[in-house]
């Protein structure tokens, strides 16, 4: 009797210990874990799907040639890509010509505006993924850009066009599948100024994969469907490498992994383009 009582006490203590943990945090066991810190260098264009098929706009140069140009790389998108409708091809062509003439069109992230989707995946520097039972949040150090994916929820009814649209997601095995609609048409999809319209619909498939030497990578594979700008749906891939933790600290503050604060408005990074206008409030309603 005494022992049964003690064991019951043990169970009560254990239960009491667990009682303080939110259910939202406890019941995500089945989902793959995307939490962590991820990064890649400056985007030179999305990769095509490895299995072949219709891919994103790429540069006339190879990536090796682009890397050799360093920070002075000139982006010249191949406007002959069959995914482009004539007007979209013209936009890409003009952007390449302007860049070559020394009048590069700054990206949205260089002018402190949100990047949109899938352009978000072109951001260099550090990204943190925060995953709970109900959300996956992508936090980017660069200009503190944020995307929130609502898990296992329907899209908002008639979302107004916005920079990051309305993103809902679910897990399929080891993959987070994100469906995004309600995007405005103010962002290019890539670093070649490839345009899209408000009809854009993006499906992203995101998972942790093992790279060279077993390194932990985050693979972001997305399909863009936009009958306003493209002749057909197309797929692109971007790969991040895991940083921090066992791979080495990225910031000495706190002794481990944490995003540094990078405020675009005071230090925008459009190299070679001075005096870029940044978002400015013209009518301040309140302090």
């Amino acid at each position: 009797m005494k022992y049964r009582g003690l064991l019951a006490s043990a169970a009560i203590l254990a239960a009491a210990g667990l009682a303080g943990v939110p259910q939202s945090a406890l019941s995500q066991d089945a989902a793959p874990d995307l939490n962590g810190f991820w990064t890649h260098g400056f985007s030179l264009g999305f990769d095509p799907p490895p299995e072949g098929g219709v891919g994103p706009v790429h540069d006339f140069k190879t990536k090796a040639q682009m890397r050799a140009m360093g920070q002075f790389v000139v982006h010249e998108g191949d406007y002959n890509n069959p995914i482009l409708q004539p007007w979209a091809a013209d936009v890409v062509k003009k952007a390449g010509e302007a860049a070559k003439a020394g009048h590069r069109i700054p990206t949205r992230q260089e002018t402190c505006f949100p990047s949109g989707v899938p352009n978000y995946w072109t951001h260099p520097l550090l990204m943190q993924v925060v995953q709970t039972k109900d959300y996956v949040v992508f936090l980017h150090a660069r200009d503190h850009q944020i995307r929130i994916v609502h898990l296992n929820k329907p899209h908002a009814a008639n979302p107004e066009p916005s920079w990051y649209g309305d993103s809902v997601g679910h897990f399929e095995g080891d993959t987070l599948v994100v469906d995004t609609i309600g995007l405005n048409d103010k962002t290019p999809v890539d670093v070649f100024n490839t345009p899209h319209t408000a009809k854009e619909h993006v499906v992203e498939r995101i998972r942790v994969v093992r790279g060279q030497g077993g390194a932990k990578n985050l693979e972001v594979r997305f399909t863009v469907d936009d009958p306003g700008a493209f002749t057909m749906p197309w797929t692109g891939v971007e790969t991040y490498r895991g940083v921090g933790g066992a791979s080495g600290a990225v910031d000495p503050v706190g002794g481990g992994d944490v995003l540094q604060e990078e405020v675009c408005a005071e230090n925008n990074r459009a190299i070679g383009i001075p005096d870029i206008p940044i978002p400015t409030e013209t009518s301040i309603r309140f302090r």
Partner: protein
Amino acid sequence: MKLSAALIFFAATWGASLAVSAASAAGAGSGDVSGIWWTNNYSSEIRPMGGGALPFTPAGSDAYRKNAAGLKDGTVEDAARKFCVPDGIPRILATPYPFQIFQSPGFVTIVYEQNHVFRTIPLDRPVPKDEELVAYPYYSGNSFGHWEGDTLVVVTKGFNEKTFIDASGLPHSDQLHVTERIRTTNGGKTLEDIATVEDPVMFAKPWSARFVYDLHPEVRIDTAYICGEKHRDISRVRGVPK
């Protein structure tokens, strides 16, 4: 007796270790402050809870007088409103826009709709000394958190000097420390954040302000608040100029 004591020890440590491992795995500590929160009241002035005068030092009083006058005549720029740079802590705690708190392994993350600012708060890490943060002078400072019962305690330090403590121009120096005690009340429907401000340059002694928010699960945070564009309707919040 020995066996009983051993079992009691086992029971206690088993419960505790399960609690620790579950909390550690979830990164959730022992409280739950996650949710979408939105205040009902806005004021441009953050003042001590319970009333009383701000305990300015002479330097603080002088700096406040200059800031307030400059904001009024335009000689001092409010960059947080004009260019959407982060408000800093504690000013953002007075935001009339909603915000969302997420709890994940090892972190509490706060996403503020206003100026699309986020704070990632690592849990249970040693708080660095001030001199270790000299190279990291941030608008939102560097935050470090831990749980005390159901209360999330967040210490923030390592600020730049580009923000005000409130929208009226209350000043701070780079020696500002803010300690927040965040917990839910009213059965989880309300969030309370008591922020204690310490800055020996501007204030002769620490003082605390209290912020209260309601749970708004129906809201979806817009993560693209851009200066110069249309923002969410916040007319429901009392104190926002019409």
